[in-house]
């Protein structure tokens, strides 16, 4: 980047130069992607978790006389086909989406990390076995397996978290294993081993530390993927159960009425899903870009 945001802003007036604000802007200017991703994500999370306090209308109350209305003063995002407040449902759907997607991403992350580290650090024959099993799991399309179990169990939110976590880890496991293998031959790891450092010690103290940035990056991608997977499930009618809803569920309801083109029931939830995935990817790619320059 030739001109940072701070230089752009500070140059004409000169007042901001060398001030704390300028330094902050300079820091942010070099990290446009990361910062815009973080800001966007923060806004989305605020909307999901605190939106209900600012806009306390009920997401399930039915206003029969006002069914299927475009946005108005009383209902800022209109109402759905049976007269429920769309803005309240968007907030509640966001809350549900996040309380399922975030723990699901954490679970995926934990399984993938432990599996990948075990494969890289345990004796070679364990690695061979784990890798063959991993290949088999990688060959199973995650969402297809997810659809299978979701149709079977009619899952509650907790079960959805478990299902998402248990079906999406193989990609991360492979990445962690390859990364750990490339790091375990480095001098500082060999030196630690020489001084008697055990496998677990090496994993905890050295590997996790050098791998931290790449792990953070992949966690953000997992979070985006898990929002997307949950929306896909909801679209197929296998996600969060009514009367509660998720963004995917709201979008599905709107899209089912596509012939009437209820834009107020389609775009808000589509934009929220889109924004969450853009935000997580901006954060991830932003960190990756910095890592690339650091090398």
């Amino acid at each position, binding site marked *: 980047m030739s001109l940072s945001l701070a230089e752009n802003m500070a140059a004409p007036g000169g007042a901001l130069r060398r001030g704390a604000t300028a330094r902050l802007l300079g820091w942010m200017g070099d990290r446009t992607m990361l910062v815009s991703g973080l800001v966007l994500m923060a806004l989305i999370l605020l909307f999901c978790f605190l939106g209900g306090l600012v806009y306390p209308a009920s997401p399930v109350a039915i206003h029969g006389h006002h069914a299927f209305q475009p946005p108005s003063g009383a209902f800022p995002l209109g109402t759905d086909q049976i007269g429920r407040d769309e803005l309240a449902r968007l907030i509640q759907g966001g809350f549900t989406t996040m309380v399922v997607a975030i723990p699901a991403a954490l679970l995926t992350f934990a399984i993938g990390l432990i599996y990948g580290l075990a494969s890289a650090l345990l004796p070679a024959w364990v690695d061979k076995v784990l890798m063959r099993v991993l290949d088999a799991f990688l060959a199973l399309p995650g969402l*297809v397996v997810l659809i299978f179990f979701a149709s079977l169990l009619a899952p509650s939110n907790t079960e959805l978290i478990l299902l998402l976590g248990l079906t999406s880890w193989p990609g991360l496991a492979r990445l962690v294993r390859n990364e750990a293998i490339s790091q375990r031959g480095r001098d500082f790891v060999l030196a630690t081993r020489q001084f008697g450092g055990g496998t677990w010690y090496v994993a905890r103290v050295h590997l996790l530390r050098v791998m931290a940035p790449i792990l953070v990056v992949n966690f953000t991608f997992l979070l985006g993927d898990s929002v997307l997977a949950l929306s896909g499930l909801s679209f197929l009618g296998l996600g969060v159960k009514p009367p509660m809803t998720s963004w995917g569920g709201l979008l599905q309801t709107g899209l089912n009425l596509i012939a009437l083109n209820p834009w107020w029931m389609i775009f808000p939830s589509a934009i929220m899903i889109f924004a969450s995935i853009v935000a997580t990817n901006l954060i991830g790619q932003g960190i990756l870009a910095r890592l690339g320059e650091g090398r």
Partner: protein
Amino acid sequence: MIRMITKRLLTSILTLIILVSVVFAMTHATPGGPAFSILGQKATPAAVKALNARLGLNVPWWDQYFIWWWHLLQGRLGFSYLLNRPVTELIAEYLGNTLLLYIGAIMLSVLLSIGIGLVQGVTWGRWPARLIGAFQLAAYALPTFFVGTMFILYFGVEWQILPTGGITDLRIAHPGALDYARHLILPILTVGLLGVSGLSRYFGASVHEELNKDYVRTALAKGLTFRAVLFGHVLRNALRPLVTILGLSFPGIFVGSVLVESVFNYPGLGYLLWRSALSQDYPVVSGIVLLLGVITVVGNLLADLVNGLLDPREIYD
């Protein structure tokens, strides 16, 4: 070389054995068993027992496991509970449509990705590459089912220039093949967009990486034009990882097509899978999952072997 190929073949067979076992375990993790989903939750124990006997579910699971293998090796995947037809027959009926959609979408996304990736790789770090990066992110972040439905809304409902779903029978449709092709355009565009978002990003990065290598500098130094280097050397080398990536992205694109096929009511495997999953028709679901797994494993094997031929260093890794 022969030894390496044999080893690679053997590991693939081992992976397939594990895959089959995982799918078997999946179908047996069903609470209450399939009898309940056929007869309903209020079925009498006697009826359940009778049905289990008829479906061969009354023998111990290890017997079922070996019987399943025996049937698989004969190419039998069982009967659909609902449609009472062999699963292989059902899959054969829907597979053609999916392959058509899939091959069309992959060809579209590979062609577009090569073009987009070249521009992105050459202009890396400057505005055209950034613009392309933004497009790739946007295409990735838009849920496929949303894109598909928007296509239906605009091309089908508002402007009425393309059919919104299904597929016609080649034998009965009035304009025949032309109408058939018209039905394919929107689904192919939707799946293709999903493919382009990922493929073009890999390809762009790979062109950029190749351009910074020593051989490019040498070629330019000895007086070759940039164009000659780009199309003569860089393009070829940058295309190599594309084979592997196509193999790896197969399950991902298929998952996307499940959603796309259900949006367009397109009678392909994804649609069949979705309908069967909703009605808990396990033999069909496990048959499709198994088929996809096998295709992926075999596809990865082929990709590795092709790479080995293109670059013998690969196969020794």
